């Protein structure tokens, strides 16, 4: 087995034995499940009141119980929520090595440091990709179970395609979270970074610059940017790809060059 292969194997073993990725998957699963529940309430408000799912005086006026509304919710889950939830994964994969000081065992070994970083990125992408795919499948299952109206196979396929592209972008941008986890030597800085980028994306969205801010582009891709939002361009995709590439190179260089005192 090559040393890169060995690094990938060890990262998968660590993630498999840890509860963290499973908790993240479970946390993510709540979105389509709760979304499905809202759809049921919107569809059958009187029944929901009788069952105690809806307070007597509560009104759920936002949204309608149909496939476009439900797909919009899935889009927000992956395009925006993904930044925070996948950041937990990046923080755990990279930041824990510093928080637990286990990084000492990864620096002066025959497996080069770049291979360790690349292996962690591959494991991150695999886990995050699997979780995103699971959310889409779970969402479609929940929608079908609820019996939402307004299904269109062609529209659904286009939506799923956009969701997949958005998920890929969110995952690719985790390279920057990984870099922050290294520089911050722990869990807190990368999670703070995820919240910060999301907040800035909101502000830039309001100012009309979302198409140029990498962390805002996935939401635009899935058409969940809200009324009047910008349309992503090829340049938007290029900005995301460039930022992800810079994040990867910066992470590798930081692991190779920075003083490791932790």
């Amino acid at each position, binding site marked *: 087995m090559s040393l890169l292969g060995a690094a990938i194997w060890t990262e998968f*073993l660590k993630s498999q034995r840890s509860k963290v990725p499973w908790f993240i998957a479970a946390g993510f699963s709540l979105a389509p499940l709760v979304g499905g529940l809202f759809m049921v309430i919107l569809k059958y408000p009187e029944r929901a009141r009788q069952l105690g799912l809806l307070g007597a005086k509560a009104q759920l006026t936002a949204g309608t119980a149909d496939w476009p509304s439900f797909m919009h919710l899935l889009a927000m889950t992956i395009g925006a929520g993904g930044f925070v939830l996948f950041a937990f994964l990046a923080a755990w994969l990279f930041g824990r090595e510093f928080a637990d000081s286990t990084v000492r065992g990864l620096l002066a070994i025959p497996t080069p440091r770049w291979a360790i970083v690349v292996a962690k990125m591959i494991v991150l992408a695999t886990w995050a990709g699997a979780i995103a795919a699971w959310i889409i499948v779970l969402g479609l299952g929940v929608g079908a179970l609820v019996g939402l109206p307004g299904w269109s196979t062609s529209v659904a396929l286009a939506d799923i395609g956009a969701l997949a592209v958005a998920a890929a972008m969110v995952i690719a941008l985790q390279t920057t979270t990984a870099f922050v986890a290294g520089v911050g030597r722990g869990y807190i800085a990368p999670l703070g970074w995820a919240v910060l980028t999301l907040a800035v994306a909101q502000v830039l969205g309001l100012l009309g610059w979302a198409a140029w801010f990498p962390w805002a582009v996935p939401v635009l891709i899935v058409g969940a940017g809200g009324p009047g939002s910008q349309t992503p361009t090829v340049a938007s995709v290029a900005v995301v790809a460039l930022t992800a590439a810079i994040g990867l190179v910066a992470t590798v260089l930081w692991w190779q060059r920075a003083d490791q005192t932790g």
Partner: protein
Amino acid sequence: MSELAVATSGLSKRYQGGVLAVDRVDLRVEPGEIYALLGLNGAGKSTTIRMLLGMISPTAGQAELFGERVRAEESGLWRRVGHLVETATAYPELSVRDNLEVARRLEGVTDRSVVGQMIERLSLGADADRRAGTLSLGNLQRLALARALLHQPDLLILDEPANGLDPAGVIEVRELLRALAQDRGVTVFMSSHILAEVDRLATRVGIVHRGRLIEELDSEALERHRDPRLEIGARDPDAAEVALRAAGFAPNRESGDDGAAVLQLRESRAIAAPDEIARLLVAAGAPPTRLAVARETLEDHFIRLTSAADRGAA
């Protein structure tokens, strides 16, 4: 420098903020030696070890292992080096066996049986399938040592290898390291502040203080530097001191373990002839209650040396 296991020249590290952690350290460690770096907390031991392992870049000077310059991006060199830096760490969610399996693969060792061999060698059999997060500090240290030894390195760089071990464990690890050096010619470069342990194990000692290597002692020098002295107890220590000074000695007055005054003479004529000192004190009316030639321990020597360095710096 190509024949040396460890060689540094002018190795220095100044951290951001101006702290000079290591100051122009020159080390030369021959293959098969057990070299101990002794120093107080913050003396620069761990920074030196991290520079030897490419974890920290020196701000001046350089380090070589087996003639190869240490660089952060270097990875081939580490096939010959096992290490333990500061406190022992392991992946808490993995078992002892899995932690070693991870190390085996990352070290590029193809022989799967080494994991079992290391578990046996470091007496970890009873805990082999326990999660590392539940191990005692001593067993965590054993696991870290097992990981350092797994790929049969030619050089072991160990930061406080006896850390957390019980007395039996300390002896076990000492014998293990001694056997590796004697039987396989493995070079051991270790740091420690447990002076008694260093005294028993090391073939050469380097004393670091405030980032500087202030003294190096080989086994002969270790013996030579253990400054002998004549310790004298007397019922009337004041009278004894006066008599000794009158005879041309320069007694040093210390407190003994029981709080009683102890006079110390370092003059060779006193050490060579304690009976003459006894006769002198009896004649002066201050007969000795105790006369003993004592040798300075490494601990005493270390404290004396570092105190002198502090006084010199002040």
